[in-house]
């Protein structure tokens, strides 16, 4: 089984659980519900709740999505998830400037623990008071537009939008290999 692991992180309420649920909804093959599920196992062995979603798109190919736990902060559980991730997306609710600093903290922690690529997903851009991408990037500490991770807009409630965000993350992470083979 070939597995890609993506971590979905961000402040509480950003849309992590919804995002992951939206991908799990498009799970096509549910071949394997046995206890080999790594996420279930970790869950069983710890009391930490984290979101897990799976998208199986071939007999031996699956995408696993992990949401960073909301109630614990920056602990070993986060670290286990990050260390195993191929890439991650930081979700930020565009209409909640209150959370921008927390998003920045999370980003600093992630960067410190893992060098893998990341993108920023702006959720709640359809809500009143939403800031635009350029200003949120500034608030997250990226004054230079040419030197920041890709910023995409995503509505965690919409499967199509989440699929688009995952594509963006995959393409950003593997731009080399995807370009070479397609």
């Amino acid at each position, binding site marked *: 089984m070939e*597995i890609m692991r993506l971590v979905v992180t961000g402040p509480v309420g950003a849309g992590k659980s919804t995002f992951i649920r939206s991908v799990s909804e498009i799970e096509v093959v549910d071949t394997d519900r046995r206890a080999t599920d790594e996420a279930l196992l*970790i869950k069983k062995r710890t009391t930490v709740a984290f979101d897990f979603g799976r998208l199986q798109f071939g007999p031996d190919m699956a995408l696993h999505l992990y949401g960073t736990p909301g109630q614990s902060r*920056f602990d*070993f559980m986060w670290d286990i998830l990050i260390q195993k991730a191929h890439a991650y997306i930081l979700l930020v609710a565009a209409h909640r400037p209150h959370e921008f600093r927390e998003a920045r903290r999370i980003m600093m922690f992630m960067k410190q623990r893992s060098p893998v690529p990341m993108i920023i997903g702006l959720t709640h851009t359809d809500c009143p008071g939403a800031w635009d991408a350029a*200003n949120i990037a500034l608030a997250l500490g990226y004054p230079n537009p040419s030197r920041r991770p890709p910023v995409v807009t995503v509505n965690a409630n919409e499967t199509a939008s989440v699929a688009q965000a995952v594509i963006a993350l*995959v393409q950003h992470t593997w731009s080399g290999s995807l370009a070479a083979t397609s």
Partner: protein
Amino acid sequence: MTVTGYLADFSLPELFQLLEQGNKTGLLTICTLADTKTAERYNHHIWFSQGQIVAAGNTLDQRGLMGLIARRGWMGDNAVSRLAQTCQINTPLGLCLKNQGVLTAEQLKLLFYTQVMRQVCALFALPDGWFQFDPKAPTPRAEMTGLIATATDVTLAGLRALKDWAALDEKLPAPTSALVSVIEGKPNLRLNPNEWQVWEFTNGTMAVADVAKQLNLPVAKVQQIAFRLIVTGLAEEMPLMAAPPPSSLALDDAPELEPSIASGKTAGAAPVSASFLQNLVGFLKSKV
């Protein structure tokens, strides 16, 4: 697009940092929330040009600076008005008056201090307020002395003078977080001795609480200093790993667990194949 919100959510130091780093030009308006006793609200205006503060005032009638000059007794209201009309359209009023020999450089400095430094620094004490930044507002020549202040300098001054930090509590770096420098070399800002001391620890390893112990300063004070270093673009808060896994959680004794994730120590994820990537993207595209 405009930037709007409440200071309780996005604080004035953060806002100044954003406007400075974004090289913004326009008008920042802060509307205080209705006072429970008097039900009065006040507007404060701060004009930015390319990320720097060029003027401040309480009205948009373009008569604030003239009023300040008149109040100093340097010139009557009418006299200033008349002279102002002879100024070139693009010249700040203060500079124009200086060029005409009516005001000295010292007087301009004093005006700027009263208009910008004193008024704006006082705003850091606001517990809340609604703000809006309008990037389309015209440049207020009649309110400008011609002098400028960097948002960073104003923030430093405002936060150094701040007595009650309650409103900023959530914004301060956690005592368990470290600080990490985000600049090359040493800061160009004029830091005070305590700020320098804390600056020496911006290497991403020592928790703020330990820095406080080391420096023999209260933790809250170090948090406040750290916040100043953060919002002036010198450092960033770096959350440190919380406690190590409880020994009961021996993840690697789970044979059924996929080996790579079970051994929490080995870093990195196994590479995925090109066909995997193509299949995945193809599948996702069918969902879009």
